[in-house]
C-alpha cells in the first residue's frame, strides 16, 4: 500500500520517461481496472432487476432449519368452532379495504415448528400438499406479504389430515398467531376431518371463528355461506394424464372402483352386477399382483386386472360411495376421467357447492335407494348424460387455464385454494361477483349461444317516445327538411343533431326550424362516423332513431309505425332500407347485396330504430379494431352496428314497410350510392373484415318484413291506422 502511494506520487514524473510500449501497457491496465470497476458497479445494481423477475429472492432454506416454538402446556386454547358463524357476524370485511381491483389480499404466516414442554413435536411440520398449496397462494394475485394489508390470514400450521395432529396443542399453536384475534379472517384447510370412532365431518381442532375449507362436510357441520367445501386431493390425478374422451356411451354403464368399501355396500353393488351383467363392473383391490407393480394403480374383478384410473374412462357412471368420511378422493379421479359421478353419501356437501351446479355434472342418490341406483340412472335420457359429460370436461379445461397462469400448480387436481379465495372474494365484493353462469357454463355452451343483454320480454310504453339523432356535416338545407319531416311524427320526444363539421359552425339558433319538441345540437371534436352512435347524455328515451340528413322521403306514418314495431322488438334493429350478405362461392368470401331480394339480414342505419344501449355497446364494447377501422375508412358504421346487435342478441333485424326508392333530387342518397361499383366492393370488404374480427358470421337472414296489420288489405283506407305507407 505504501509503495503504491509512493508510486502515485512519483507517477507524473515517471510517465514522460516511459517508453511507448509501457505507456500502452499502463493504459491497457487501467482500462482493465476501469472496466472491472464498471462491471462491479453494474453488479451492484444488476441483481435488482434479476431478482424481481425470477425466483432468486425467494428464500432457499431447509425445512429442518425453521424456527422452533415451544408451547407451554397452559397456553390458551381457542373456543370450539362457532356453528352460528356467518360472513356478517364472524368476518371483518373492513380488513379487506376497498380495493379498486376488487381482490382480497391473503397473508401466509411464516413456517414454524411447534413443540410441547417436553420438546415433542405437535405435528408433522408440513405436508407436501400443504406446501404446494401455500406456494400456489403465494404465487397468485391474492398474495400479500404485508400483514397490515391482508384480509385473509392463512396459518402455515398444516391441518390437512386430522390424524397426524395433536388436537389440543395444534389449537394452542393457532391461538398464539400474531393476528389470531379469535380466528377472525383466518382460513384453515382440511381434507381429512374427524377420527375414529365417530368421524366428525369437520376438523375437530378448536378454531373459534376461523373459516374452514374442508373436504367432507355434512349438512350438520357446514356453515352455509361461511365455510368452503373442497374436494379431497387425489395423488393419482396429479400423476396420471388421461387422454380426452368425448361424450357418448362407454363400455360399462356403471362402475365402482373404490377399495375398502364397507362389506354391506359391496354386497349391494355386487347384487347389481349379478342382476345387470356386463354393464355393471364392481372392482376391488388386487390380491395376486406380482412384485414391483404399484397396487394403487391396479384394480381387479375376479382375476381380471384393470389399470386405474384409466378404467374409469370406460364407464358412463362411476360410484362415489361414502366411507368413514364423506369426502372421498375417488371423486377427483372420477371427474378427471370424465365419468359422471354417482354420489351416494347422505348429507355430504359437494365441493364448491356454493357456486357449482352439481346437478349438471353428477347424480346424487340417497343411501337407502342404493339398490335402485341402476334404474334411477337408466331413466336419465342419453342427452342429459352427454350434457353432464360435457360439463365434466370443463373442469380440465379450467385447470389448464389456471395452470398456464401458474405453472407451480399442476400438482393439484383443482387450483382449489384459488377457488376458495375467489369464492370468499365473491362474498366480500358481491357486486363484482362472478355470475352463476360464468362458474358453470362449459366453453362449448358459450359457442353459438348468446346472452341477450335485453332478455326481459317487455313492450316499452308508447308514451316514452323516441329520440331522433341526425348526423350531419354541412347539408343544412336538406337537414332542415329532415328535421321538419321528423318533427311531424307523434311519438318523437327529442331531436338531436350531431354536428360533425369542425370547420364550420352550425347555423344560428334563429335559423333552425321551429318544432314542437326540444332540439339539441351536439358539436363533435372530430369528424368521425362513430359519433352517430355515441351514448350522449341528451338521449333520455330508450328508443333511438338514427337518421341521415338526406332521408326526406319517409312519411310520418312510416316513421311512427317503425317506432311501434320497435316497441314490439326492442332488442332488435328496426329499419327501412334492407340489405343482404351472401356467400360468394367463386371468390370464397362474403358479398354485399343491395338488389331487390326476398331476404334481408341488415338494415341501413341511415333510417333505423334501436335501443340506446347499443350505443353504449358500439362505443365501448365493439370487438377488435372495428370502431377505429370504420372511422378511418369513413364507411360501414351501419354494417358494424348490424353485426354488433346480431352478435349480442342472436336475432335478425326487422325491416319495416315496403321497398322505396331512397332517392332525392339534390343529394346522393343511400340507394344512389349503393349503385356505385366501388362502393359495393368496399361494403363487401367491410363484411369480410367484420366477420373475421367477430370470428363468426352473426348476421341472421330472414324472409319477412313488418307491415301494418291491414296493409294493402281490402279495407277502407281511412279506417287504417297507418294509411300513408308505401307511397313513393
Amino acid at each position, binding site marked *: 500500500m505504501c*509503495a*503504491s502511494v509512493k*508510486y502515485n506520487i512519483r507517477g507524473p514524473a515517471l510517465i514522460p520517461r516511459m517508453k511507448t510500449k509501457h505507456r500502452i501497457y499502463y493504459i491497457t491496465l487501467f482500462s482493465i481496472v476501469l472496466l472491472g*470497476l464498471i462491471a462491479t458497479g453494474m453488479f*451492484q445494481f444488476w*441483481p435488482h432487476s434479476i431478482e424481481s423477475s425470477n425466483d432468486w*429472492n425467494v*428464500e*432457499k432454506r*431447509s*425445512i429442518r432449519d425453521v424456527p422452533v416454538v415451544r408451547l407451554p402446556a397452559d397456553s390458551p386454547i381457542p373456543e370450539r368452532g362457532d*356453528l352460528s358463524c356467518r360472513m356478517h357476524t364472524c368476518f371483518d370485511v*373492513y380488513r379487506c*379495504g376497498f380495493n379498486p381491483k376488487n381482490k382480497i389480499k391473503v397473508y*401466509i404466516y411464516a413456517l414454524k415448528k411447534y413443540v410441547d414442554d417436553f420438546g415433542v413435536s405437535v405435528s408433522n411440520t*408440513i*405436508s*407436501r400438499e400443504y406446501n404446494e398449496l401455500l*406456494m400456489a397462494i403465494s404465487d397468485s394475485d391474492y398474495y400479500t406479504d404485508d400483514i397490515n394489508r391482508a384480509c385473509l390470514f392463512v396459518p402455515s400450521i398444516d391441518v390437512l389430515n386430522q390424524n397426524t395432529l395433536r388436537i389440543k396443542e395444534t389449537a394452542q399453536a393457532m391461538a398464539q398467531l400474531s393476528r389470531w384475534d379469535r380466528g377472525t379472517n383466518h382460513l384453515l384447510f382440511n381434507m381429512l376431518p374427524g377420527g375414529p370412532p365417530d*368421524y*366428525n365431518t369437520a376438523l375437530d381442532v378448536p378454531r373459534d371463528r376461523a373459516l374452514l375449507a374442508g373436504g367432507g362436510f355434512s*349438512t*350438520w*357441520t357446514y356453515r352455509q355461506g361461511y365455510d368452503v367445501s373442497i374436494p379431497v386431493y387425489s395423488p393419482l390425478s396429479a400423476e396420471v394424464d388421461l387422454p380426452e374422451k368425448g361424450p357418448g356411451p362407454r363400455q360399462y354403464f356403471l362402475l365402482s372402483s373404490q377399495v375398502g368399501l*364397507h362389506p354391506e355396500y359391496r354386497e349391494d353393488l355386487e347384487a347389481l352386477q349379478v342382476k345387470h351383467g356386463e354393464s355393471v363392473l364392481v372392482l376391488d383391490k388386487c390380491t395376486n399382483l406380482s412384485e414391483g407393480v404399484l397396487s394403487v394403480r391396479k384394480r381387479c374383478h375376479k382375476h381380471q386386472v384393470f389399470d386405474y384410473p384409466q378404467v374409469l374412462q370406460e364407464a358412463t357412471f362411476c360410484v362415489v360411495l361414502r*366411507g368413514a368420511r364423506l369426502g372421498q378422493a375417488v371423486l377427483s379421479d372420477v371427474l378427471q376421467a370424465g365419468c359422471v359421478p354417482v354420489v351416494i353419501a*347422505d*348429507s355430504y356437501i359437494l365441493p364448491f357447492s356454493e357456486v357449482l*351446479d352439481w*346437478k349438471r355434472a353428477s*347424480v346424487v342418490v340417497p*343411501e337407502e335407494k342404493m339398490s335402485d341406483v341402476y334404474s334411477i340412472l337408466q331413466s*336419465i335420457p342419453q342427452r342429459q348424460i352427454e*350434457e353432464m359429460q360435457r360439463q365434466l370436461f370443463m373442469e380440465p379445461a379450467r385447470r389448464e387455464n389456471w395452470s398456464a397462469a401458474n405453472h407451480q400448480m399442476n400438482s393439484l387436481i383443482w387450483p382449489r385454494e384459488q377457488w376458495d379465495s375467489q369464492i370468499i372474494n365473491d362474498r366480500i*365484493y358481491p*357486486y363484482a361477483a362472478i355470475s352463476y*353462469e360464468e362458474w358453470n357454463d362449459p366453453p362449448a355452451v358459450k359457442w353459438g*349461444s348468446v346472452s341477450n343483454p*335485453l*332478455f326481459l320480454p317487455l313492450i316499452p310504453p308508447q308514451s*316514452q317516445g323516441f329520440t331522433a339523432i341526425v348526423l350531419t356535416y354541412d347539408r343544412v338545407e336538406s337537414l332542415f327538411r329532415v328535421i321538419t319531416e321528423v318533427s311531424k311524427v307523434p311519438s318523437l320526444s327529442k331531436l338531436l343533431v350531431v354536428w360533425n363539421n369542425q370547420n364550420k359552425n352550425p347555423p344560428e339558433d334563429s335559423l333552425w326550424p321551429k318544432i314542437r319538441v326540444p332540439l339539441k345540437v351536439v358539436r363533435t371534436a372530430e369528424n368521425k362516423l362513430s359519433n352517430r352512435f355515441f351514448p350522449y*347524455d341528451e338521449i333520455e328515451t330508450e328508443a333511438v332513431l338514427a337518421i341521415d340528413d338526406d332521408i326526406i322521403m319517409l312519411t310520418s306514418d312510416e316513421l311512427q309505425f317503425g317506432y*311501434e314495431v320497435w316497441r314490439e322488438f*326492442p332488442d332488435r334493429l328496426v329499419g327501412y332500407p334492407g340489405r343482404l350478405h351472401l356467400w360468394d362461392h367463386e371468390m370464397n368470401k362474403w358479398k354485399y347485396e343491395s338488389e331487390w331480394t*326476398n331476404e334481408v339480414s341488415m338494415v341501413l342505419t341511415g333510417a333505423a330504430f334501436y335501443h*340506446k*344501449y347499443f350505443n353504449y355497446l358500439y362505443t365501448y364494447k365493439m370487438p377488435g379494431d372495428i370502431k377505429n377501422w370504420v372511422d378511418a375508412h369513413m364507411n360501414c358504421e351501419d354494417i358494424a352496428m348490424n353485426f354488433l346487435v346480431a352478435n349480442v342478441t342472436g*336475432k*335478425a333485424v326487422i325491416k319495416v314497410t315496403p*321497398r322505396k326508392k331512397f332517392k332525392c333530387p339534390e343529394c346522393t342518397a343511400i340507394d344512389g350510392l349503393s349503385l356505385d361499383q366501388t362502393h359495393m366492393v368496399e361494403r363487401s370488404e367491410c363484411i369480410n373484415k367484420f366477420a373475421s374480427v367477430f370470428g363468426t358470421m352473426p348476421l341472421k337472414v330472414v324472409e*319477412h*318484413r*313488418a*307491415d*301494418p*296489420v291491414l*296493409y*294493402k*288489405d281490402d279495407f277502407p283506407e281511412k279506417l287504417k*291506422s297507418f294509411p300513408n305507407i308505401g307511397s313513393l
Partner: protein
Amino acid sequence: MQSWRRRKSLWLALSASWLLLVLLGGFSLLRLALPPRPRPGASQGWPRWLDAELLQSFSQPGELPEDAVSPPQAPHGGSCNWESCFDTSKCRGDGLKVFVYPAVGTISETHRRILASIEGSRFYTFSPAGACLLLLLSLDAQTGECSSMPLQWNRGRNHLVLRLHPAPCPRTFQLGQAMVAEASPTVDSFRPGFDVALPFLPEAHPLRGGAPGQLRQHSPQPGVALLALEEERGGWRTADTGSSACPWDGRCEQDPGPGQTQRQETLPNATFCLISGHRPEAASRFLQALQVLAALQEMSPARVLALRQQTQFLWDAYFSSVEKVIHTTLEVIQDRIFGTSAHPSLLWNSPPGALLALSTFSTSPQDFPFYYLQQGSRPEGRFSALIWVGPPGQPPLKLIQAVAGSQHCAQILVLWSNERPLPSRWPETAVPLTVIDGHRKVSDRFYPYSTIRTDAILSLDARSSLSTSEVDFAFLVWQSFPERMVGFLTSSHFWDEAHGGWGYTAERTNEFSMVLTTAAFYHRYYHTLFTHSLPKALRTLADEAPTCVDVLMNFIVAAVTKLPPIKAPGGPGPRPKPPAPAPDCINQIAAAFGHMPLLSSRLRLDPVLFKDPVSVQRKKYRSLEKP
C-alpha cells in the same frame, strides 16, 4: 535497477488494481456463490424449500379405515336434513301429491282462498294416505285461533308448515320433522336444504296473478337517483352519483348533509334501493348507504341493465301473488324429490321461470322454445300438422293436400273427434298420415300426443283453408319466433266499459291480441303446458264452451312469453267467420289467471317483397299476393 524498480511498480500497480477489484467485486461474487438472504422489505413469498422433495404426503394410502357405516349424525338430536327427515318412498308416481289439512272453525278469507288455490292446482290430492306431502297452513293471525296438532302428524314427517305471515300463535306442538316455510327465518333455526325461506308478504298481497313489475324500460332513465334508502319512519332518502361516496374502510366521518340528498314519502324512482335487515340508527345507516353508493358507482351499465331485468323477472315469476309463492314452495320441494329430473338452475333463473317451464317436459333447456338462443340451439326445420276433425266430420282432403305439399311438413295427424265412423281411405300423401281417434273433447286438441315427433305443430281445423305457400311462409316466420304463436286469423280483446269486463272481437282491426288456433303454428311444449299446468276447472271450461279454447290457448302462451302472437299473411277469400266465444269465457279465464296476460300487436309479418312494385318473377311468395 531501474528496470527492477519499473517492474516492481508495475507489479504494485497490478496488485493494487486487483485488490480494488476484489474489494469491490468480491461481495457481489460472494453473493452469487451463496444463497441470497432476503432483503428486508422486499416481497418474499412462500419459500421454496430445498428439501421439498422429501416432504411426505398428508395421507398415506391405506391409512384410512373405511368401516363406519352409520351416516353422520346431527350434533343435537332434534335437527333435520332432507335425507333423515323426509320419506321419499311415498312420492313415487307422477310428482308431488299434496294433501292440505282442511280448515277448522272460522277461517279468514285469505286462508280460504289459499286452500282453494291449492285444491285447484295440479299438486292436490284428496287422501292423506296417498299424499307425499301434508301441508299445514298456519296463518290465521286475525281470527286468533291457533291450529292444534293435526291427525296424521306422525312427528311431522313429510309435513310442511306454511307460515305466510308472522304468526302470533305460540307453537302449540313440536314441529319435529316438519319442514317450515316462512318469511325471514333466523340463521339458527333455518335448516338449509330442508326448510324453505319465503318472501315477506303483506296482508294485502294479491292471491292470484298479481301486478306485473313496474319496470317500463330496460335501462335506467338518465337523471334518476342512483340509490334510495329507507328511513326510520317509513320515508325515503335518495342519493345520487353526485354525492360524495365514502371509502370502503368503514370510517366515513361526516354526514353529507341535506344538500346532496332528498327526502321523500313514497318509494322514489331510483336505480337501486338499500334494504337493511337490521335497524340501527338512521345516521350510521346513511353512512352505510354512501359506502354502497361507492360500490354502485363502479358498476358497469351492462350489469345494472341485467340486474334491473332480473328483479322484474323474479318478481313476476315467483313473488307477485300468494299463489305463486305457494306454488314455488311446492315446486322447490318437488325438485328435491325428483333429484335428477329436477329443474336445472337455468330454468329457475331465466324467463319464464320454473313454474312455467315444466321439468316433466324436459330437463334440458334446449328443448324449450324460450331457451333456444341462450343455448345456441334451434328448432327442427319441420313441422307436424295436427288436423282436428269435429262435427260434421268431413275428411279435409283439400287441406291435407295443401299442407302435405309443404316442403317443411314432416307428418300429418288427423284427430278424429266426431260421431261419424272413421273413413277407411285417406288420400295418398308424401308424408306419413296418422289418424287418432279422439274422445270428442275439445281439450284433446292440445294433448301432448307421443306421436308428435317435431318441435313445431301446425294446429288446424278441418274447415280451415290454407295454401301451401301460406303454410311455407308462416312456418319460416315461426322459426324466427319459436316461443310465440304464428297464426293467420286474428281476434282482439278489449276493455268493455259498459259491462265492466273484458270483451272479445273477431272483427278486422288495426291490432290484434290473439290468433285463432284453427290455423296456427306453435311449439309442442304448449301442449304439455296446456294439459299439465292448467287448473282442471279451466280445461273443463274449454270442453264445455268449445270456442273458448282459442282464448285459453292464447292466454297460456301470452302468460309465458309476455308478448303478443304474430300474424302472417293468411289467404283472403270468403271463409266461415269463426263463431264468437261465449262472452263470459274471456272473463272467466282472466279471473282464473288473476290478470290479463294478452298483449296487442299492430303488425303483420309479410314476405320482404310483398306487393312491392317489382317483377313477379323476383318474388318467392307470389301466390300470397293473389287477391
